[in-house]
């Protein structure tokens, strides 16, 4: 390196480059951020919605009580039919984790969906504001008309909750069944949950079923280290992952995602 320092030409080029970069940074910081234009979706009618009640904050959320889940996939199919989700992609799915060595083995279930994060990385990266957080209820929604299918949010989501709709060519994910909850109906997957494992409600209300469950159980969220602050809580979730195969005492782990994506990413 020393030798190169001797060439003034290059050094000059470099300083300039650096200056350019700094200038750019300033430009970025200084740029006026226009307010998002996420057009209120057609479905935002709040006739029977919590949000309509004046002065009450609403943050919808879900508790998934894995103790009750029987791994039946009724939720998966309910969601598929509610939205006619095309083959190969899922708004909701149920993973199985198998572990242990004969005869000491177990299989646990992990129902999955969008976490409707309070710090949603998908919203942070969306260049068009197609993905946005609904002020009235905290649901993270995608405005299909605006989405350009850049798939950036698919990378940003730490939960692999998003997919490219192969028919409509927009990016989609669970929207907590806005069209149902805004009419006072439970989300479709909750409505059919055979085990009664999915419980939905207003986390901002300390008396709601979900808040009470969270208060009185040992709950967890997925990948909390991501700082996304999910609003989907789990009771008794099994956090074993295929990476745990590296541990000598849990060599045998098999995660079955029941999705086209065989890997849990």
């Amino acid at each position, binding site marked *: 390196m020393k030798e190169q320092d001797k060439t003034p030409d290059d050094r000059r080029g470099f300083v300039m480059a650096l200056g350019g970069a700094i200038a750019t940074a300033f430009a970025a910081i200084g740029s006026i951020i226009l307010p998002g234009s996420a057009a209120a979706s*057609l*479905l935002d*009618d709040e006739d*029977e919605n*919590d949000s309509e*009640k004046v002065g*009450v904050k609403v943050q919808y959320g879900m508790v998934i*009580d894995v*103790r*009750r*889940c*029987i*791994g*039946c*996939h*009724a939720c*998966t*199919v*309910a969601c*598929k*039919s*509610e*939205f*006619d989700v*095309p*083959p*190969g992609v899922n708004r909701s799915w149920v993973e199985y984790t*198998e572990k242990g060595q*004969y*005869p000491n*083995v*177990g*299989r*646990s279930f992990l129902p999955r969906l969008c976490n409707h994060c309070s710090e949603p990385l998908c919203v942070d990266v969306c260049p068009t504001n197609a993905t946005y957080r609904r002020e009235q209820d905290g649901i993270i929604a995608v405005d299909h008309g605006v989405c350009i299918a850049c798939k950036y949010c698919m990378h940003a989501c730490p939960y692999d909750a998003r997919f490219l709709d*192969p*028919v409509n060519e927009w990016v989609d994910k669970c929207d907590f069944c806005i*069209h*149902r*909850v805004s*009419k*006072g*109906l*439970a989300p*479709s997957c909750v*409505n*059919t*949950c*055979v*085990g*009664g494992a999915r419980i*939905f*409600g207003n986390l901002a*209300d300390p*008396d*709601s079923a979900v808040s009470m469950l969270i208060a009185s159980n040992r709950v967890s969220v997925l990948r909390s280290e991501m700082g996304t602050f999910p609003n989907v809580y789990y009771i008794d979730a099994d956090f074993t992952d295929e990476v745990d195969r590296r541990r000598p005492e849990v060599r*045998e782990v*098999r995660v*079955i995602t*029941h999705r*086209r994506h065989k890997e849990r990413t």
Partner: protein
Amino acid sequence: MINRRNVLKLGATTAIGVPLLKTKKARAHQVEYEAGRDYAYLSGTERDPVATTCALCPSRCAAIAYKENDYVVKIEGNPASKRTMGKLCAKGQAGVNQIYDPDRILTPLKRKGKRGEGKWEKISWDTALEEITDRLKKMRDQGEPEKFMFHHGWISASADRLINKVFLPAYGTGTVASNSCLGQSARLTAHELTWGGYEDSWDFENTRYVLNFGSNVMEAHTNHVALSRRLSIAQVDRNVKMVTFDVRLSNTGSKSDVWIQIQPGTDCAVVLAMCHVIMSEELYRGAGEEFLAFCQVTPDPNASTAEKVRALKDHLASFTPEWAEGISGVPAKQIREITVEFANTRPACVISSRGVSAQHNGVQAERAIQMLAAITGNIDNPGGRCLGVLPEWHYPTGPEEKPAVRKLDILNGFEGESVLAAHDIGHQVFNMIKEGSAGRPEVYMWYNYNPVFSNGNSQRNIDILKDESLIPFTVAVTPFYDESAALADLILPDAMYLECFDFEDGISPDQIAEYAIRQPVVPPSGEARDFKDVCCELAERMEFPLGFDSAEAFVEQTCNLTPVTKKVGGFNAMTTLGVRSDQEAKPTFYSYKKLINEEQLNKEGIIFDEASGVFWNWQQAGVQSEQDAIKQGYRHSPDAHKGYVAQKIGDKVYSGFKPARTNKSGYFEIYSSTLIEKGLPALPVYTSIPEHKELKDNELILTTFRVNVQTLSRTQNCKWLDEIDVENDHGWINPKTAKALDLSDGDWVKLKTDLGEIKTHIIVTHNVVPGVIAISSHGGRWEYGRYASGKKAPYGIELQAPYDSLMWWENEKAHPNWVIDNVSEPISGQQRWMDTVVTVSKA
């Protein structure tokens, strides 16, 4: 079709225990979520609901189907159903895929070319029915109606009544078989031998302990949603412990507190050992001892409880846990521990299913299980193993004058095949036809049934069904082009369940009967017609009208005749409600304990049989005279059980355990008066499976099992299910076995028996016992349309891009029935699905 507001209004009034339906509370900030409505996702317009009932498996759960622009778009549970608590399983919701299956058959098809060649022409219903009428009428007129054979799988309650109880008897044929030999006949027979009634129900609402032998209730079962929902609640809310014996880790096993690995076909030994522990450690004391009063344990119906205890102790003395360990591989210590825990936790529910009964020793194993429940007092009690409660529909019975029914003697298998054969042995019908000594049907018609695929020995089934010299005319009644329909001469496109009227009689998990109906959500697609309507028309054409001209009329009359449904407003109300249970009824427990008074016994024809302690009505049993009746006695009058009235126990007379198909007493017969007469041991014993005695190194036991997202051969045309089911394309093999056979994960293997061989790839997993290969019973389809087999059905619709390219799963699964033979459990004739020995080698 129906008014949604009414659904909700009526629904809400029935919604006891269905919190979701409660009207919104005043609590301003808390929404209580409703059910029973749905909105279109994109437009927000309300979807049009129709109350109906699922028919994708024998559970028959009440449902609401939603329409958008007259298309069915969504199906969910009916919140008014107490059975299902408003839930529907994955399969039920995928019914949307089935009704719009691009490979559905939508016109009658007649074969061109050779049978099974796959060439078809569309014909009109009129032509099709004319051909059938000609053939059927000729046989009927010639006095050979029995040459019309009708074979069905599980069908709706109304199809059973309309077709099996009205149409076919009015026609005159009794050559009618079901598929019960494939599924439940060993269980049913064991139940008939012990408590008489045959459908059991498990009271998870009140139980404190669940002991499971070979049931996969969390994934399958004939009352799946109702039971799995309650079991899950019991486990979490009441901390109910569950112990499951299975050869592989089913989801039921994984939701249990303990999965106990057991060698295939050896449950009976463990159960006997548990009974041994209960008797020898005096754990029967209390409820068990009390219940023994209602049991027959010795030849003497008047034996005292002490004598019964003595007899049981003697019988069970040698069946020690150590003995059972040697057979089953379950450690004796564990057997003891579980027994003590189970016997000390009351009420406890002993559950069981085809894991123990679809085996060579199925009836004995199931009887042993009944004994285990009995000696701990867990029979028909809250929280125990109960006699199933189902609705009693009063239906129109058709023409007054029915001909004497004639039948071909091909329904009960070969000579000596089974001791009782109280249920037909449908899996031998083809072989009996081939053999020919009992005659052959001229017309073989099947309905809701896929004989080629669902029975053992697929190749022979194909060969026989294909052979025009054996069966001159074959008719498939089905909406779908399955493996059997491909071998028909004529395919009648049945309406799909979402296009039909029906009533149903599913078992109630809470011991209160629930009445459910089905109604068309949309009219039949294409030219499809409800086969029940077709039967009405056929009867009309053959000039024996049934008195109702359609399934709708039949269901309507039934709803108006049946007290419970009549009370709510009959058919009209039921089309709005979909489902209704008797509001006044209390759960039925201890049904055997009803005291029968003098008056009830002082009726014409009722006599007392000293030898059995049974009061019976010889007239209802079809005996010629009272003299004969007394002379022959209850046990030896052929149909005496039909006249059963009551059982004398001590100095009281009880309703007892009413026999259903054999002349058992009104006792709970641990000691079987029926089997002893057949020369079999009267008390449950263990017999090992003969084929398992000496296994070579490369011989494994093939177990087949149900998967939660498929029903046997019925749902593989549902893309929403197929894509979840892709993981089930493997044979499960334990690492130890794999090592011994030099196999590794993902390898392709050959499974060979005398019948031939199949190929499958394997998953090496710790979730199956060594020495076993487990394969799901749903895979390896070679017809049924593109989603199931990758093959389009004749006249199947071309799909438009991009949907056709979105089918990403492969159909590489193997079907086990190519290598499983048609073999009967020796008492009941149940097909043995779980104990076939196969030679396994790398492919």
